[in-house]
């Protein structure tokens, strides 16, 4: 039988109840938000449950919303059921003081670097990750560059005298 959104909603809500916080469908992609200490449980359920079978992880990334107090950091998972060709997006929100979510490396080997990248740029602490180091930036970096408090350089600045890249 073919998979549809009603089945997914019904199953998830039967299993997790009010841990599933909201549902929406921006531009045709079913998206739900889950409480941040339940991300791994939901991923595992989606992976293992026969009818759901979301066994392909397309992407993990982070977003920083400075205006959302207490849930500034979002971690976004894109999942794909290749057999039914159904895509699903899952989000968890975590406070910026303690951005802890559980790692998905136990389910998906591919999550390893995706999570390292998310840690690298947003400082999300993936609990249980085997090797949570920076991946694209230098190891000595002491901030998380994609957070909104680090603006790009002002393009109109004139105080800089740089012989190599003079402007």
């Amino acid at each position, binding site marked *: 039988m073919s998979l549809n959104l009603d089945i997914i909603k019904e199953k998830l809500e039967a299993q997790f109840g009010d841990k599933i916080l909201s549902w929406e469908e921006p531009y045709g992609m079913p998206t739900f938000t889950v409480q941040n200490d339940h991300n791994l449980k939901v991923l595992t359920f989606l992976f293992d449950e026969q009818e759901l079978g979301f066994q392909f992880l397309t992407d993990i990334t982070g977003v920083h919303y400075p205006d959302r107090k207490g849930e500034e950091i979002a971690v976004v998972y894109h999942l794909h059921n290749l057999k039914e060709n159904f895509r699903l997006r899952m989000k968890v929100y975590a406070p910026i003081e303690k951005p802890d979510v559980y790692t998905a490396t136990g389910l998906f080997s*591919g999550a390893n670097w*995706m999570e390292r990248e998310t840690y690298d740029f947003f400082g999300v602490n993936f609990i249980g990750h085997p090797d949570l180091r920076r991946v694209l930036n230098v190891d000595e970096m002491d901030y998380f560059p994609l957070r909104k408090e680090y603006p790009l350089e002002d393009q109109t600045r004139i105080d800089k005298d740089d012989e190599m890249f003079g402007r």
Partner: protein
Amino acid sequence: MVDQANINLPEGSIEKQTTTLNLGPTHPATHGVFQNILEMDGERIIKTESTVGYIHRAFEKLAERRPLYQITTLTDRLNYCSAPLNNMGWHMTCEKLLDVKTPKRVDYLRVIIMELSRITDHLICNSIVGVDTGAYTGFLYVMQYRELVYEIYEEVCGSRLTTNMGRIGGFERNFPDAAFRKLEKFLEEFPKVWKEFEGLFSRNRIFIERTKGTGAISAERALNYSFTGPNLRAAGIDYDVRVHSPYSSYEDFDFIIPVGTTGDNYDRFMVRNEEIWQSLSIIRQAYEKVQAFKGTDADVYHADAPEYYLPAKADVYTKMEALIYHFKIVMGETEIPAGEVYHSVEGGNGELGFYLISDGGRSPFRLHFRRPCFIYYQAYAEIVKDTMLSDAIITLSSLNLIAGEMDA
């Protein structure tokens, strides 16, 4: 001398100690800037540690300041072997967000360009695999046809490698006749050349012995590592974004998805090889469809989206609205609707995804590129474990690692 107690040589090894070998960041045998620190037992690899990020350029951060049309130049520099493909993927993402419908002729022209870039991408990958197995001639021979494809790009948009081709809604101008003449020349001559190239390798005993059974990954592991594209198909999974989530009217074309069985270097080579033939067939179909447009329909090369598509220069000088739109677009002052979009295309290396979040300003709130290279490169350590160094070099090329795409 390394402390004997710390050596983790496998049982039966005749070596006295392991050797650490730095493969990269710049090494004549690797194509791109990335480092692998190999721990070797003689010629056998025990452990690999991969370091990436040498050419990280913070595209995702840069994109947060740029209006949509300026981000196209960033996508060029992801997989620079198939830059127009990334451009088209980005334009389609924007069109999805802005709800712009493209005419059929634009879709078909895009398909021609996208398949040409797939051919150049696979052509480079396969001929480089040839170089790494010791056959340089094939690489030099097919290179002149990449040159011809670049001439087609040049006729269409004026540049060759980092093309910045197309606009939101279509192309900046109609394809000139010269582009079609060169396309015809390509369709006429390239198949013969590629046939010859294929003949040099696919049944060549030396090549088969170097590539068959080396660098293999099973379908389960490939899926678990989120492989996409030719590397996943070589392992036997027929996942292709063009078929599963058709975009740019791919549903109008008739083609097959080649799959391998073992996921080794030879299968990857053969899958790419067959994809080139499929791409050629798609281009022929698309060119036929483009030629079927007659009269005014044949002049359509962009969507009717005045808010996002630059008006003709003559109109800018004579019409008020055109002048306003011109100014707003060039200054990047067009407000884009709030929303979040994920759009993916079948890139040269697999599913190239764009995750765009807009909060209604002039530039994206957040843009994330799903780069297939970055995702499947992490499997490299597992694939080359317990293989010979010279096989690992071929594996590196046959995975088609493009440093630009990996580091973004």
